């Protein structure tokens, strides 16, 4: 059973909690902005855990003061891709850190098929394992938006 007990994707912060409401998302964004992070919105239809780089929805937003700007972009992304995974990422540009400081999922497809375990026979009775995301079974163009 490769799928989490909750039956949904658990990546990033808060993923074992119920979905955050918009007001809660705003508070998280504001927390990051107060720390000086730059937020960005990303989406994907392939939630494989090793799929690190999701598609960027616009460029990262630097120099924002208020969460409303990020929320605006998030709403745009939700409108464009209602049935994809969308996550918010906060980039900490402090010298020596320069990496993602916060990252949580803010939108999920209605149906999350989860992952399967794939076994591969290798020489000498060796078995190799890999994880396969059911969401990518269909060709990209037919996965629905």
């Amino acid at each position, binding site marked *: 059973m490769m799928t989490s007990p909750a039956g949904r994707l658990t990546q990033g912060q808060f993923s074992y909690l119920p979905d955050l*409401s918009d*007001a*809660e998302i705003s*508070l998280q964004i504001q927390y990051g902005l107060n720390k000086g992070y730059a937020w960005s919105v990303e989406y994907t239809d392939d939630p494989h855990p090793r799929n690190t780089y999701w598609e960027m929805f616009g460029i990262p937003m630097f120099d*924002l*003061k*208020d969460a409303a*700007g*990020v929320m605006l*972009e998030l709403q745009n992304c939700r409108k464009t891709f209602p049935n994809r995974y969308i996550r918010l990422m906060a980039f900490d540009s402090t010298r020596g850190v320069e990496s993602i400081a916060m990252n949580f999922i803010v939108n999920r497809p209605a149906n999350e098929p989860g992952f399967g375990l794939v076994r591969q026979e290798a020489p000498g009775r060796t078995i190799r394992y890999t994880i396969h995301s059911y969401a990518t079974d269909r060709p990209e163009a037919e996965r629905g938006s």
Partner: protein
Amino acid sequence: MTAPLYTIPGAVQPVATPAAAAAAPAAPTVEAGSMRTVNEVLSQSQAGAVMDELEHDLIGLAPIKTRIRDIAALLVIDKLRMNLGLQAQAPSLHMCFTGNPGTGKTTVAMRMAEILHRLGYVRKGHLVAVTRDDLVGQYIGHTAPKTKDVVKKAMGGVLFIDEAYYLYRPENERDYGQEAIEILLQVMESQRDDLVVILAGYKDRMNTFFRSNPGMSSRIAHHLDFPDYASSDLLRIGDRMLEQHNYRFGPGAREAFEEYIRHRIVQQNFANARSVRNALDRARLRQASRLFADKDREFTPEDLTTIAESDIRASRVFQIAAEQNPD
């Protein structure tokens, strides 16, 4: 999405479903909700302090101060109405500042951001000052992201567009300015709670701009016209500027400066407070070179802070005035 079953620490007012809100009003609003008098609201928002500061710091500008006080009063009364459960829709506070150069449009806009913040109308109270260059792109598809970027930065504060009429260039119908205007219009309408837009510029050109963009004009509730300063105001502004830089007028210098202002007002390119600042800057230059010539003298603080009458009288303005009125 399902309603949250928990509260995040630090969340002051979790958005509760209507049923939950009715059952248990959030704790912090009880105190604010009990406010019934203007003074109670003022003591919480320090709006009174800002209004006093405005009165004290800005010289002249009586109509502007009145309007700002009206807006402040409306916001306070709205808060009281809300406490009594009356409907209080957030007023539209987009503004347009028109006036001649140097009449304090930018200064007031800065103040406005702070005032609205203290009144609790905008959340952050910062000012993002932009011109056409920051909004309009250079090629197709460049304008929208650029304008949106600026708008996002200004969210929670005030977006100040200086010389807004340059956004619209009627002589070039393929100009990208129109696109920026459309995005601004949309944001001004839909994100009214998040953003206050202030347009500024010279009166006649602003009127032309509004004539060709009626949508813009109707979305702006407050058209403030900045009057020119009287010469007595300008003199007081000069006093204030010198004070800020630790200078003062020497004997006779203030009278000379008064005369200077009287001549300068009628001459070309007069820019109100900005002209005063430039004149004082030049007087400081002259004072510096006057002192510089005395290579061996030991200066007292007195010497270094005093603008002498001669520093003012050396201005070209007096010559021009003398040429124009030979008698």
